[in-house]
Structure formats: structure tokens, C-alpha cells
């Protein structure tokens, strides 16, 4: 039986390709994330190498760590006096943007720009490749990557923005952190006193690294240090700290990797369609062979085993190659990230056992699962069939059609109900509607073989107009095996539906974001970093407050925290006395008085966070900062805003005390009445000149900026979806080739009867077009339906259903075009068909 595979190499290869792609994508995702985790782990352990314990209030290195922390230097001397302590060093980790030779800040999206204090070699961190550590207040050491990229040398002057406006420093040395690529991250290293003057107050540090004497363990040091600490400080071993930081990154990359994995599984699922089709067809073709086997005494079981063995062989081979493909996929995924403007650190790429197991397991299971039904059909071939000619499989009975339709309808209804009746937080409703949407898709896939005949007739109608016999032939051929056409069209349908769903959903999200900003933002200008998400130096506030055009200035400070049992959400700090002048809350429960009464001990909660935390106005709830500090607060108001103020809002006085890493996210500027907006814009730009990378945006520009973030994510999705659609195209090619192979004799006869090569091409193109048109139309309808379901589920959060007509039409055209493209290769082969060989074949 396995010899069959060798004989049908080409077909087996094509079947296997679908599985291969899916497995590649899944294992590629794991290889990619493993690699990033490994890189970050190495980065952190290099950074903390040598230190036994760390007293810290810092967040992880991957995210910007920015604003002042309050560890007093006198704590350092207390720790130094403890037994078992070999060395103690205070550290500062913050941000610093180096200005490139072209006068523009060196920034890479999602990659940190670090400002660090120098620590001696025994505490890890730096390896100098040129020059020496910074000493005076005007010296800096920069990272090797930046130095190489910009051609900076020791002794040169370089401009750097810290919490202070632009300042020039002399490069004392060039260093790197550990051995991994920083992936676009840059750093500037200052002497500790310089760093303190730039970022904090004298005598304060972010964290304290402690090394132990030879016979002292980290645990012993921790138990000694802990009693010395004030409640907002923590002490952890360097190992634990690394683990926590890596886990934090895993969390942040989680959404992304989940998305990638989802695509991997969709690819495998679509692969299952291709496998099902191929096996159905090869088994139909080999009916005689199975009958002969049965006539020669093989039991049904033996026939089944033989076919399943074949499937398993394909599954294993495809998965193994797929694992290799995973490496390629990992590289491509990284390239994709670079393409959308973010780079990540990299360590050596390696395949974890777990990844291999998962890839192999999924590939094998799906192949065997998809081959099972065709294989069972093979066992039902009676031995006598060997003596008869092959006949096309009979259509399923009307009764089973009814049962199937009823089941599909029930599934469809259940899916709709599930999707539309959710309550609670947005993420909960989103999950629910996603499951419901999945059920709707399955229902449509299940019912497709029954309705496909009629669908083919409708879709193929234009091809047959004017009595075109080729159009009619194409239509009949497509309807000839409804299961096959249905499976092929389904995979294109799912691919296109996903593209469309993402498009419509993103469009709705963008529209709703714009509406929110329109409704809530009173400020004429918003000062933020050019990428819209990086923090900006606090000194920018003073830089604009004094301008005569400005009536009010209010800053928005951000960190992350939890409210009750909500997940990690944005925590915002505002000054209640000024914030109302630049921002109008969209109250669900509350009024302008709620903002005014935002005293220490109170909190305003965004509607969605309120849902997931199960709180309403008047409730008291525990708020937890990311460093683990807790405080009980009273809910004073609930508002709606999924664009600017997600999470919850605290008064700035409390915020600065509780959060050790507050970051100024934006500064809102309201102009005095009668001021020229253009003049003010020019004034603001001038005032912000010492802060490269910081810009003042009008309301429209803020909206565009928020929209462009959606676009970035969209680009990533589209790249993956292109893969999925490409796979369904491959499915069409595969099915078409197989069905043409089945009809070799028929094609030969048509050619003998006077069908020209060109007409042959047209016939095949029409067949392909019909399948693609079915998939494209169904895909577009389904995509819009899914988007509608999900936006309806999220309607309460202001997500609106906005149909991008142009994109919908474009996708439809793309799907149809896909059908034409898919037919090119099979048609070429059919045209080259040797007419004589075809008709002589008995």
C-alpha cells in the first residue's frame, strides 16, 4: 500500500503540503516565541548577572521604565553593613533617546530606548568594547548597535533626551549588554550621580543590586534585607526577578502569539479539507483496486488499515517537513515584525521538544481524521465491484439531507444566540461571540454539500448565457461532485471570511475610536511621543504651560494595575482640578461633580473594567499596582472610553505615591478663546524643539495616530490571512488537477470532437471560477455576518458596524481572480494532454 504513495508522489505531495503549511505556522510560532523568550531571559540575566538579590520597584526591561522611584541611598549603606553582603550598588533604569546624525531620534517601535546608570562589572550589565565607563556629568556610554549604525566614536559629542530637555554628552565608551541582539533597543549609560540628576533626586535610585559572599545564599540575604524595607519596596533573588520579567514579556506577547497560533490551527483546519478531498478522489479512483483486494480475501478491516496507514505516512512526512518549515516560518514572522516597524531581540533559534511534539501530533491527527471518512468509504466497496466499471458515487439520500440541514440550522441558531446574548466584560462577550461565530461557520460548512448544486447553478448562470456549451459543461462538472466542490469552496470561504471579518471589525473599531475622541477630547492639541505610545519627558509640561496662547494644560500619567479581580488594565493619573478643561467624561454613572470629587481614596472606572471587576458606583474595591502595592478605593463614577482613558482613573497625588513607574503619556493643551490655532501650533512646535520625538497633534491627528495603530496590527493579520487564502487557492488547484486527472479520457474525447486548446483552457477556467465564486461570495457574506455578530456583541462599548464597501468589493474581485489564477496550471497541463493517449486509455 505504501508503494501507492510513491507511485502517486505528486498528488501525495500536494495533499501533504496543506498539512505542512499548518504545522509550519504552528511550530514557527512556538519557535519564534521560544526564541524571543530565550533572548529576553539572556538579556535580563546578563543585566543582573552577579547580583544575588535585587531590591527593586522597577518594571521589566522590555517595557519602558521611566519615572522616579524612591529608594533612598541610605538604604544602601544599611544593606552594606549586613553580614554576607559582598557588594551593594544602586541602579537607575529609565529612558533616554539618542539623537542620530540626521537630527532625528533613534527609535524602533516596541523596542526600548534605555537610560541606565553605570554599575561595576561584578554586578553584570555592561561589557565595554571601546573606551571606558562614564564618569563626569557630561559623559555617556552608548550601545554598540547604535554606535555602529550611526558611526559614533569615543570622544565624539552626542545629543540625548532624558527626562530633561535635549543635552549634549561626550561619548566615553561603547558597550553591549550581554551577548544577545537587543533587537532595536538602544541604551545610554551615565554615571550614577549624573543619572540621579537627570532622572531622580540626588541620593535616590530605582533599584539596589546586592552580591553575596561565597557561603551566603540569596534566600539568606533576602531574609536579612526584608525587615529593612518600607512597605512599597520588594526584595527578590536575581533569578526570580528574571523569571518574573520574562513572564511579563510572555504575557505581553501572548495576544500576538495566540493570534499566530490561531492562524496555524486555521491553516491546519483548511488543510483537512484538502486532505479530505484528495483522499476521496484517490479512493474513488482506486475502487477497482480495493474491490480486487476484497475479492482476493482482504477483510474490510485490512482495507481500512491500508488506507489509514497511507494517511499516517503522509501525516508524519508532512509534519516532519512542516517542523523544518517552522524555522523558516519563525524567520518570516520576525521579518514581518520588522516590516511593521518593530524589532525584537534574538537569541539562537532552536526547536523545543514540546514544539516538535505538538507539531507532529496536530499534523498526524488532522491527516488521519480527514482521511477517515473516505477510508471508511473504501471499506464499503463490495468485491463484485472489481468486475464492474467505476461509477460516480451516488448522491446522499433525501432523508439524510434533511437531517443534516436540520442539524446545521440548529447549530447556526445556537451560534447566533450564543454570540448575541453575552453579558459581562467585553473580553468575555468577545470570546462568547467568537465561539458562536465558529458554530455559525461550521453550520455553513455542514450544509454546503446539500445546497451547492443549486448554488453552482446560480453562480454559473452567467457563464452559460447565450447557450455557451462550455459554460454548461463547467457548471455540470462543478455540480458533479458536490461534496468535493463544497469542501474546496469552503476553504476559500473561510479564508476570505476571516479577511473580511478583520477588515470590517477594524473599520468599526477605528470609527468608534474616532467618535470617542470626537466626543470626549476638549483639548485643541495633544502633546505625545511621535509613535503615540512612548512616554514623554515631564519637562515638556513646563515647556508649554507658560505660552500666552495656552488656557489650560493637563497631563495624563499612565501605568498598569488591577482593580479587584480585573486583569491588568491601564491605570491613569490625572489632576482633578484641571483635567475637566481638556477632557469631557462620557458618564454612564456620574457627572462633572464626580471628577471634582476625585479625592485621594476614590477612583473613576471605565465601563468595561467596571464590568470585569463587578463594581458599581459607591463600591469599595482593592486596587493593586503592578509592583504589588495595594490600596482600597471607592468608585465615584463609571464612564465610557475605549480610546484614551481605558482602565481606571486616580487622582495624580495618589497615583504618584502608589505607582513607582508612572509615565506621562500625553499632555493636553486647551487654547485661550480667540487664539489662532495655526499660530499656536507653531508656538508649541518651537517650545517642544528641545524634546525631539515629542510632537503636538491636533484632534484629527490624534485620531489618525490611533487609527494607524489599528493599521499596523491589521498589516500583520493580512500577511497571515494571505497565507490562509493562498492555501485555499492551493486547495482549488489540487481539487481541479485531481478531477481533471479523473476525466483524462473525457477531455481527450472533447479534444477529438473539436474542442480547441483555447476552449479547453476556458472550460477549466470556468470550472475553477465557479468554485472560487462560490467560496468568494459565501466568504464575503459570512465575513460581514461574523463582523456584524461580533460588533453587535460589543455594541455597548461603542464598537460600531461600519461596512467598508470598497474593500468588500475588492475582496470579492480578488476571490474571483483567485479562481482564474488557480486554473492556470491545471489548464496548462490539460492542454498539453496527449489526445491519443487519453482516448486510447481503457
Amino acid at each position, binding site marked *: 500500500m505504501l508503494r501507492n504513495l510513491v507511485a502517486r508522489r505528486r498528488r501525495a505531495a500536494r495533499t501533504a503540503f496543506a498539512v505542512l503549511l499548518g504545522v509550519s505556522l504552528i511550530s514557527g510560532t512556538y519557535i519564534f516565541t521560544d526564541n524571543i523568550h530565550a533572548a529576553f531571559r539572556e538579556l535580563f540575566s546578563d543585566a543582573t548577572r552577579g547580583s544575588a538579590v535585587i531590591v527593586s520597584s522597577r518594571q521589566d526591561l522590555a517595557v519602558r521604565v521611566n519615572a522616579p522611584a524612591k529608594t533612598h541611598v541610605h538604604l544602601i549603606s544599611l544593606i552594606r553593613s549586613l553580614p554576607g553582603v559582598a557588594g551593594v550598588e544602586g541602579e537607575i533604569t529609565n529612558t533616554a533617546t539618542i539623537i542620530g546624525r540626521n537630527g532625528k531620534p533613534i527609535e524602533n517601535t516596541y523596542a526600548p530606548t534605555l537610560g541606565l546608570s553605570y554599575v561595576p562589572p561584578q554586578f553584570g550589565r555592561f561589557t565595554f568594547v571601546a573606551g571606558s565607563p562614564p564618569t563626569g556629568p557630561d559623559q555617556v556610554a552608548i550601545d554598540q548597535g547604535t554606535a555602529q549604525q550611526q558611526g559614533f566614536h569615543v570622544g565624539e559629542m552626542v545629543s540625548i533626551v532624558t527626562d530633561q530637555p535635549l543635552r549634549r554628552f561626550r561619548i566615553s565608551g561603547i558597550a553591549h549588554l550581554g551577548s544577545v541582539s537587543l533587537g532595536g533597543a538602544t541604551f545610554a549609560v551615565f554615571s550614577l550621580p549624573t543619572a540621579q540628576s537627570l532622572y531622580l533626586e540626588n541620593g535616590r535610585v530605582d533599584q539596589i543590586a546586592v552580591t553575596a559572599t561565597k557561603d551566603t545564599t540569596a534566600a539568606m540575604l533576602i531574609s536579612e534585607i526584608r525587615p529593612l524595607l518600607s512597605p512599597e519596596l520588594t526584595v527578590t533573588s536575581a533569578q526570580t526577578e528574571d523569571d518574573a520579567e520574562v513572564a511579563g514579556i510572555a504575557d505581553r506577547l501572548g495576544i500576538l502569539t495566540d493570534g499566530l497560533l490561531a492562524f496555524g490551527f486555521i491553516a491546519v483546519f483548511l488543510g483537512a479539507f484538502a486532505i479530505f478531498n484528495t483522499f476521496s478522489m484517490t479512493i474513488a479512483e482506486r475502487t477497482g483496486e480495493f474491490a480486487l483486494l476484497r475479492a482476493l480475501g482482504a477483510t474490510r478491516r485490512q482495507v481500512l488499515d491500508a488506507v489509514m496507514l497511507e494517511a499516517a505516512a503522509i501525516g508524519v512526512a508532512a509534519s516532519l517537513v512542516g517542523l523544518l518549515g517552522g524555522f523558516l516560518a519563525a524567520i518570516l514572522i520576525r521579518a514581518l515584525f520588522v516590516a511593521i516597524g518593530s524589532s525584537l531581540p534574538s537569541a539562537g533559534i532552536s526547536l523545543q521538544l514540546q514544539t516538535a511534539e505538538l507539531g507532529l501530533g496536530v499534523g498526524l491527527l488532522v491527516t488521519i481524521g480527514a482521511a477517515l471518512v473516505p477510508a471508511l468509504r473504501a471499506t464499503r466497496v463490495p468485491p463484485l465491484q472489481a468486475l464492474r466499471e467505476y*461509477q*460516480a458515487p451516488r448522491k446522499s439520500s433525501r432523508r439524510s439531507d434533511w437531517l443534516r440541514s436540520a442539524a446545521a440550522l440548529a447549530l447556526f441558531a445556537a451560534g447566533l444566540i450564543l454570540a448575541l446574548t453575552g453579558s459581562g466584560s467585553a473580553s468575555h462577550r468577545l470570546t462568547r461571540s467568537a465561539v458562536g461565530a465558529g458554530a455559525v461557520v461550521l453550520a455553513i460548512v455542514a450544509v454546503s454539500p446539500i445546497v451547492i448544486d443549486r448554488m453552482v447553478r446560480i453562480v454559473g448562470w452567467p457563464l452559460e448565457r447565450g*447557450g455557451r*456549451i*462550455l459554460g*454548461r*459543461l463547467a457548471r*455540470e*462538472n462543478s*455540480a*458533479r461532485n458536490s461534496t468535493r466542490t463544497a469542501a474546496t469552496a469552503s476553504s476559500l470561504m473561510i479564508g476570505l471570511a476571516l479577511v473580511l471579518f478583520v477588515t470590517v471589525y477594524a473599520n468599526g473599531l477605528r470609527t468608534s475610536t474616532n467618535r470617542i475622541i470626537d466626543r470626549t477630547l476638549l483639548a485643541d492639541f495633544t502633546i505625545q511621543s511621535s509613535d503615540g505610545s512612548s512616554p514623554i519627558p515631564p519637562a515638556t509640561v513646563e515647556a508649554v504651560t507658560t505660552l500666552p496662547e495656552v488656557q489650560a494644560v493637563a497631563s495624563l500619567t499612565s501605568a498598569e494595575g488591577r482593580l479587584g479581580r480585573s486583569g491588568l488594565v491601564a491605570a491613569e493619573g490625572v489632576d482633578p482640578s484641571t483635567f475637566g478643561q481638556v477632557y469631557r467624561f462620557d458618564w454612564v454613572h456620574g457627572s462633572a461633580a464626580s471628577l471634582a470629587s476625585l479625592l485621594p481614596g476614590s477612583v473613576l472606572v471605565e465601563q468595561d473594567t467596571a464590568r470585569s471587576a463587578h463594581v458599581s458606583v459607591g463600591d469599595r474595591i482593592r486596587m493593586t499596582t503592578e509592583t504589588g502595592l495595594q490600596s482600597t478605593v471607592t468608585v465615584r463614577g463609571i464612564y465610557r472610553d475605549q480610546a484614551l482613558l481605558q482602565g481606571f482613573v486616580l487622582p495624580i497625588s495618589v497615583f504618584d505615591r502608589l505607582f513607582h513607574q508612572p509615565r506621562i503619556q500625553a499632555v493636553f493643551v486647551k487654547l485661550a478663546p480667540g487664539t489662532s490655532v495655526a499660530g499656536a501650533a507653531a508656538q508649541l512646535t518651537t517650545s517642544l524643539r528641545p524634546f525631539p520625538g515629542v510632537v503636538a497633534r491636533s484632534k484629527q491627528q490624534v485620531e489618525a495616530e490611533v487609527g494607524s495603530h489599528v493599521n499596523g496590527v491589521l498589516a500583520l493579520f493580512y500577511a497571515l490571512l494571505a497565507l490562509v487564502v493562498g492555501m485555499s487557492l492551493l486547495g482549488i488547484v489540487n481539487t481541479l488537477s485531481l478531477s481533471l486527472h479523473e476525466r483524462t*479520457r*473525457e477531455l481527450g*474525447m*472533447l*479534444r*477529438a*470532437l*473539436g*474542442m*480547441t*486548446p*483555447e*476552449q479547453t483552457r476556458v472550460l477549466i477556467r470556468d470550472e475553477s471560477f465557479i468554485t472560487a465564486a462560490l467560496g468568494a461570495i459565501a466568504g464575503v457574506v459570512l465575513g460581514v455576518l461574523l463582523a456584524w455578530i461580533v460588533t453587535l456583541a460589543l455594541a455597548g462599548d461603542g464598537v460600531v458596524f461600519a461596512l467598508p464597501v470598497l474593500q468588500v468589493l475588492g475582496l470579492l474581485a480578488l476571490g474571483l481572480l483567485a479562481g482564474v489564477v488557480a486554473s492556470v496550471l491545471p489548464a496548462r497541463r490539460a492542454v498539453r494532454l496527449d*489526445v*491519443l493517449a487519453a*482516448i*486510447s486509455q*481503457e
Partner: protein
Amino acid sequence: MTKGPAVYCRYLIKRYGEGETAVEALRGIAVSFERGSFTAIMGPSGSGKSTLMHLLAGLDRPTSGNVWLDGTSLDGLDDTELTRLRRTRVGFVFQSLNLIPVLTAEENIVLPLRIAGEEIDEGWLERLLRAVGVEDRRHHLPSELSGGQQQRVALARALMSRPSVVFADEPTGNLDSHATEVILAMLRRAVDDFGQTIVMVTHDPLSAAHADRILFLQDGLVVRESERLSAPEILDSMKTLQLLI
């Protein structure tokens, strides 16, 4: 219709392969088929009879020599031109699986004309349907017809375009004796009633006995040509020529 033979060929040689392994399927054949004649080509397998038919029908190209179909030289015609010629000047009846399974009997009959985009002569269609006795089954799919009925539909299709010549390649090879008789009688009537030229490749003496003329092929050459013979006479000729081995 042009004058002269429906189809004729000169010095037809067909060689497969190159050098030492080359096989000559036809080694120089010159035959002519008059209009309204019914010719049987006989010979053992490997004698070249199918190859000859393929060359005459423009389905394949000779290594050397030339074929004239209804006065048109096939030499130098490209694939599309040959195809266009076949559409209207040539009819085919193959041994089996003649029909397109998704089209009805009637649609199969008019298929070549539809492919060529030509007018359908409804009167002629009705006459043919009646002549081959499938007028009551015209809307049936091939799978709903018996083997004999399928071949009759195929014959009607071959006649539909009033071609210069109909090539029948073992048209009764898959049929029982009764159905065979019916088909052969219909071929005969097509010649007698419609003046159709028919060239039939067969190895069955009983079939060949219906033809006006019989060509015996052996090793790529016409070894004997005779006027109408009875089945026993054909068998005798085959024995003398040692064509039965």
C-alpha cells in the same frame, strides 16, 4: 462538397522513438476512401490500424507522407487548425465511454456543433434521433442508457455535423451480439441512406463483413485489399495471411 475522395493519404510513415529503438508503426501507406463508401480496416494488434486511423483523422501527425481530408492537406496545419477541421469534417465513434456523463443524450449529439458554435439543424437532429432509435430517451443521461443505446447516441453525434468521414474505432468492442448487429446495421444505413463515408477499425470478421471494402494491415503495411467479403471469407483471408496469431 469538393470532388474526389473523402480522405486519402500518400506514403504515410509513422515512426516512434529514435535510433536503434525506433519502431515503425506505419511503413508507407497510400490509400484512398471514396465518398459514400464503408471501409473496414482489419489487422492484429500492433499492425498499425489504429495509428492509421489517428493519422487519417488528424489526431496525430505522420513522420512523413501526407493526408488529404475532404481535399484539404493536413500537412502544416497547427493544433487549433486541425481541431477546427475535425469539428466539422470528421465524426468519431469510440469503443466505449463515448459520451460526456453530465450531458443528456441530445446534448451529447449536438455537442461538437455547440463547441464549434454552429447552427443546429433541428430537422436533421430529429431524423438522426429517430434513425438511431433514441428519440424517447433524448433527455436521459448516459448513465441511464444501456451500452448499446450509448453507442447509438455516439453514432448520431458522429453523423450530426454531416462530416466528410466518420471514423469508428472498434465501435462494437464492448457490446453483446444483438447490440452489435444493431450498430452495424445503422452504420450500413448511414452509408446507404445518407451517403456517409465510414472508416471502421475492427478485428471482428463479422463486423468487417458489413463493409464495402476491407483493408488488411500487417506490420504497418496494407497487405491485402478486397471488395465486400463474407465473414467466412474474411476469416480465410486472415488465416492465409497469418493474421490470426
